[in-house]
């Protein structure tokens, strides 16, 4: 009985340690993302890993990202007041459309069903002016 109690105590201590470590890892990641990356100036759109287009965040615009074999899968990307978000999408879950607007460097909106990834980045890291649409 005494032995079982000690085992339970040890388990509880390990549980708490595990949870603290996980939350610390998350906090470190969050601090890195928010403090050290700053703001981006362009959004890069990729479809299934291939570049679809790069759009400046400083210019308001609406862009329909069409994917799928017949191009009927749509995600409407809206850039307004320096932030980017998906306004509407034809994907079944609509998670991308529910996602809040992004503007910090490295932030992204992902539409898993359509394979669309919208990521905020800086123009310098994108380099080539010929890919800026």
């Amino acid at each position, binding site marked *: 009985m005494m032995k079982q109690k000690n*085992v*339970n105590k*040890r*388990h*509880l201590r*390990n*549980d708490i340690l*595990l*949870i603290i470590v*996980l*939350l610390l*890892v*998350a906090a470190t*990641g*969050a601090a890195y*993302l928010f403090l050290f990356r700053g703001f981006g100036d362009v959004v890069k759109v*990729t479809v*299934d*890993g291939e570049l679809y287009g790069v759009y400046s965040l400083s210019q308001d615009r609406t862009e329909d990202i069409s994917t799928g074999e017949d191009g009927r899968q749509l995600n409407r990307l809206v850039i307004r007041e320096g932030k980017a978000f998906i306004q509407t999408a034809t994907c*079944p*879950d*609509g*998670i991308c459309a*529910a*996602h*809040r607007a992004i503007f910090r460097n*490295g*932030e*992204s909106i*992902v539409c*898993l*069903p359509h*394979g669309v*990834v919208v*990521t905020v980045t800086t123009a310098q890291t994108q380099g080539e002016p010929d890919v800026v649409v």
Partner: protein
Amino acid sequence: MRNKSKTTAFMGLFTALALILAYVEVLLPPLFASLPGIKMGLPNIILVFLLYRRSACSAIVVSLLRIALVTMLFGNVMALLYSLAGGILSLVVMILLRRWNVLSTVGVSVAGGVAHNVGQILMAMLLLETAELGFYLVVLTVAGTLAGVFVGLCGSALIRKIPANFLFLDK
């Protein structure tokens, strides 16, 4: 278990339970409106229970059956890949931790919850060929931890309340 038909009935019962919990989870409103796609992982309660009360093998069978059935009922092939990545990684982690006996049910389920999310993110990185999903990993680590605590508490309550000889679980 030597009795084959009893095993079949057991697996059917627990698979049905896991399936129902997965369905209930779809019906529940999202926990955080601004962070869609985050789920409690209620079916994991069944897996934790099986892991402690029966065997790792039964948990694997129920988990795979549930993923297959949920995909057939509500999902598509893409969803299947994500479910499998999360489900398998989560189960492997939980089985190993259970075997090492260093954590309680809560700790095991926290590790399982986080592993589930990590598995899905890894699959997303693979399929979308992008490594820029770090933000999601941060959010999902916290979400997985909280969900894991809840699931672990439910699981340990079940394990405590349901006697070892219930439905001949010990045989």
